[in-house]
């Protein structure tokens, strides 16, 4: 819809690398990760604590604060791709 320009500024692959490093998932190769796999229940099998860790890493690296009271959180945290899209959208809205 709106993403071709911003997607290059912040790619889901880059986020995958950040997540693998941030969560110390040493047994995963960020280049091989399925970006559309669900983050929870199957897929990457992350939990709520991992979400906090990821949020802190994203905040530190990109200055984007993920909010607990965002009504779209379910969609935002669906996959690495959706999370990257969200961060990219926030960054581009900031200009």
């Amino acid at each position: 819809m709106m993403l071709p320009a911003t997607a290059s500024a912040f790619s889901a692959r880059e986020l995958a690398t950040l997540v693998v490093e941030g969560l110390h998932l040493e047994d995963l190769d960020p280049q091989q990760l399925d970006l559309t796999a669900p983050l929870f229940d199957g897929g990457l099998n992350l939990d709520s604590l991992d979400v906090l860790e990821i949020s802190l890493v994203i905040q530190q690296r990109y200055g984007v604060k993920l909010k607990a009271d965002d009504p779209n959180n379910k969609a935002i945290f669906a996959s690495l791709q959706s999370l990257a899209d969200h961060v990219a959208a926030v960054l581009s809205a900031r200009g």
Partner: protein
Amino acid sequence: MKHWTERSERGSVWLIRLIVWLARAVGRPLCRALLHPIVFYFVLTDGVARRASTEFLQAVNGRPTRWIEVFAHIYYFASTLLDRVYMAAGDFDRFQVTIEGLPLVDRALQPGGGCLLLGSHLGSFDLMILAHRALDSRPVNVMMRVDPRSRVRNIAGIDDGTLRVIPLGQPDSFLRAYDLLTQGEIVAVLADRVDGAASLPVNFLARGTAMPIAPHVLAARSGVPTLMCFGLYEGGNRYRIEFVESGATASSASRGAELQPVVDQYAAMLEQYARRYPLNWFNFYPYWRTDGGAT
């Protein structure tokens, strides 16, 4: 260990249902008398709870458990279930509640920061209703599993509306807790059951088990002080809310095995209180058989 907690909860559903019905049908003194045959029957028929109680009491007393002690243990549990019905209905006047350590909470909140309260199944976390009253106007949020399949809360008519609940098991549960803590609020979380999450091995009552690391990670990341919080039953109509210092929070970036000292601290403090209030141990499942829970 999820299946154990669920199974033992299922097992006690009829107990809870019966107690709630009684509490509403007859007065508390008669209810407490009727708890004797009910608990007697429960001890006879619920092998999981009976064995868990026997094992815990043996560990805490350092000698074989007598039958009457298991009975007393379950009776304490049943008594708190009964009283929760009254508390859920807002009927607090009939209870004598001692509160210790409230100044610690205020001191923790002083610099404008939040405070993480580490709870346990020593005593009842649902007694956070009492703690909530004790905490008066201080902003307190309770992390708990709000599982529609868990009928216990529904049966007991516990109104979560009186507490600000952060439901566990949602993607943003811990993010929510973090936000509230860093905004200067109080968050309470149970820290003695692993439930499939990341854990570290600890010694508890001289036996190996595992305890979760998530609560300690939350404290470390948000950089808030932690206190332990107990809601204890002292027999009769007496309850006790205690806030206790549990030692330093882990440094902000700690992870994995670096959290061992704070998990050990928590386990040691829990053990100290378990020795002091053994009949308040409400983990009625095989607590020490958490093989494979550690990561």
